[in-house]
């Protein structure tokens, strides 16, 4: 079970439309990704809340078909 990088990006964008999303396939196996998500909507939120917002866009997939996602979040400069 794995997900394509484009699918991950599409899900995040569907939930956080202004997000800039950078996905890296860490192992080249379509199963271990890093996502860096930047969004104005994160401003004023704790890191925990920012990551929760991203996880929310991925729903049940997180920890399931998408089991290895390294996640970092940021507010635009």
């Amino acid at each position: 079970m794995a997900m394509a990088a484009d699918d991950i990006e599409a899900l995040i964008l569907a939930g956080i439309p202004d997000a800039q999303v950078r996905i890296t396939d860490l192992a080249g196996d379509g199963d271990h990704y890093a996502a860096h998500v930047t969004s104005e909507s994160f401003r004023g939120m704790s890191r925990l809340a920012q990551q929760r917002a991203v996880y929310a866009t991925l729903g049940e997939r997180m920890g399931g078909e998408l089991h290895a996602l390294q996640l970092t979040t940021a507010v635009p400069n």
Partner: protein
Amino acid sequence: MTDTAHARIQDLVSKNEVVLFMKGTPLFPQCGFSSRAVAILERIGVAYESVDVLQDQEVRQGIKSFSDWPTIPQLYVKGEFLGGSDIMMEMYEAGELQQLLAPQAASSAG
């Protein structure tokens, strides 16, 4: 079942100042993210309780709803959920985690 799991988790995070819910053990982590979490705590030199969720299906499922967080590892300090390994790494790189765990690290060394 979830209620029992939540009660057990609450008990664990109340009785231990620093608790890491992880896959595997600190000596033999079973996942790269858990391994990274262990490495950060070892580097800081803080004593912590680890819970291997692979050995406990009840906690493995229960911790996700308890914390409202979908992945493992998860770090608790003084009963409060801090985050997963990515947040731990960001906090470590910013020097925040060392600062937060300084009291516990000091008592571990003593």
